[in-house]
């Protein structure tokens, strides 16, 4: 799909990623994309569709199922001056590649006194969509705590494109986190090349009574909750982080200082999660505010539709949490 609308066109999420990657492979004749089934197959979600035909097998490389070496090669090539994008199908499998990513890539620049930089992007797909206990995890909070790693997570087509463009221009390692449930979505995208800078959150919906801080697929869940809350006259603001490391505390605090109510929402675990960090930093700057942290229940995520739904945050739960906070002490 690619319907021109003025100088923007409506594209699918996967097409936004594909365009950003294609533009980079065009601009950097040595840049390499590698991953399982990223070649003729075009990626699990067709997010690399057509790149193999355009750039050939030397630059768009199918790999064996060997996440550790995939990332290790990506790190080594990047450290040696060739930009790499390594596609790891699901975020659960990044657990197999943390040694090269955390023990080497995140530390290379520091430990060599600045001699080595690692301009590599690891793209992973997080979130649950009927795939079961070992294919549904969201581990952003782990990665954002690693000094030396940047972590971004788009929630829509425009950011999927703009953040990938920025990621592929960064001179240090970046983890780009997309989500299974975002691939069916589409949206408008400017036909002109552009970037979405790291470290800038956006207000996805303005509101006066409460602030929901979230990222990735959960942005749409937050917006759905807002619709339910609007009926009760509760007007919520939704902040889409876009970038988890660096984190845009200013935009969050501007909102919370206005609403006085902070709800953090993530699909991953609440314990030591993204929300815990945000709640602490916001209150360190603004002083006490009403806080509620939402995330998955403390259990594995089953592929069973009943159990998966029961274990993940949904609009109703988010709305309840906001109602509870906003009516507290009234």
């Amino acid at each position: 799909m690619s319907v021109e609308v003025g100088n923007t066109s409506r594209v699918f999420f996967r097409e936004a990623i594909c365009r950003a990657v294609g533009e980079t492979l065009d601009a950097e004749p040595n840049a390499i994309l590698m991953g399982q089934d990223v070649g003729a197959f075009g990626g699990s979600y067709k997010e690399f569709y057509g790149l193999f035909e355009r750039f050939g097998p030397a630059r768009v490389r199918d790999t064996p199922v060997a996440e550790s070496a995939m990332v290790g090669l990506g790190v080594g090539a990047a450290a040696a001056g060739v930009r790499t994008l390594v596609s790891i199908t699901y975020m659960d499998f990044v657990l197999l590649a943390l040694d090269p990513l955390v023990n080497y890539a995140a530390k290379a620049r520091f430990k060599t006194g600045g001699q080595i930089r690692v301009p590599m992007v690891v793209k992973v797909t997080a979130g649950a969509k009927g795939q079961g206990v070992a294919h549904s995890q969201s581990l952003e909070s782990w990665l954002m705590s690693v000094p030396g790693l940047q972590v971004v997570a788009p929630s829509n087509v425009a950011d999927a494109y703009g953040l990938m463009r920025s990621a592929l221009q960064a001179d240090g390692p970046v983890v780009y986190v997309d989500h299974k449930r975002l691939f069916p979505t589409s949206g408008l995208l400017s036909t002109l090349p552009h970037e979405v800078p790291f470290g800038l959150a956006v207000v996805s919906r303005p509101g006066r009574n409460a602030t929901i801080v979230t990222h990735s697929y959960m942005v749409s869940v937050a917006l759905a909750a807002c619709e339910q809350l609007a009926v009760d006259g509760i007007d919520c603001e939704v902040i889409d982080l876009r970038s988890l490391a660096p984190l845009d505390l200013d935009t969050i605090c501007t909102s919370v200082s206005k609403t006085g109510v902070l709800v953090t929402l993530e699909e991953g675990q609440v314990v030591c999660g993204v929300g815990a960090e945000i709640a602490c930093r916001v209150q360190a700057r603004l002083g006490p505010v009403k806080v509620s942290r939402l995330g998955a229940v403390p259990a594995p995520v089953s592929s069973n539709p009943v159990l998966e739904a029961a274990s993940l945050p949904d609009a109703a739960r988010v709305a309840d949490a906001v109602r509870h906070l906003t009516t507290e002490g009234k």
Partner: protein
Amino acid sequence: MIASNDTDALTAMLLARGLEAVLSRRADCGFQLLSGGQEAVAVGVACALLPKDQLLCSGRSIAPALARGLDPGSVMAELIGRSSGPCLGRGGRGHLSQPSSGFFGAHAVVAGNLSIAAGVALAMQARGDGNIAVCLFGDGACGAGALHETMNIAALWRLPLLLVCDNNLYSVSTPRAAALAPQRLSDLAAPFAIEARTVDGMDVRVVRAAALELATRVRRGAGPAFLECISRRFASHSTSARETRQPQELAADRELDPITRLENALLSEGALSAHAAQALREQVRARVKAACAFAEASPLPVPHEAFADVG
């Protein structure tokens, strides 16, 4: 089902094929990883196992689970997420498990079950109970370091572990040759002095014979063994995955169907009459029907089970 006769093997393959045929028609239970075309590997290997042996496998686990004797109704129930599945509908596709039946189970992480299986073998060795652990994995798993680490330790410790590579020539869309450098995947066992074979995975009698020979060695305490079975996957990677192979290739694969192959052999050898064969297919159809009825009748789990049995 050790030393089971050919008819039992034929029945087991027909059962898997039949159950999967139903599964592949229903879209309401998410995608499925079908064993169609690869039944001879699962069944042939299961023929070599004793009741207390343990079989572990990849996410492609329907034929292996059935071959190990799990009740088709409970397998069906698990696959469509019902409470009467062995995992109460919580594990679901890719995580079928019933250790009490010698099916330690599936694990959907490619190569993830290799070191686990070695651990199960280590427990058997520690108890000295004479049982063996068998790990069934795909060609894709052969690119993973887990295989190397597991083979080295299993060889050093002479663990009662039989490694069976069900090489269906593809990892999703990636041809085995594009992902793996070795000539034969069984060559990977050589540096560790692990006894290895590569056999035709489309002939259940060949698989069974090789599995029996190697399982016996392993059981004797000779340490691990490696069996590569060359097979064909009839359907695409999963019921939701795009097919990338050419029609001619798929047609040629169908020519090798392990079920018709065994059935024809038995017919021509006079070991099975056309009438008996017909009756057998009828019985299987009835069992599949009953299995589906049982599964359908089973309730879905209740939401609070999302918190159950953690850790």
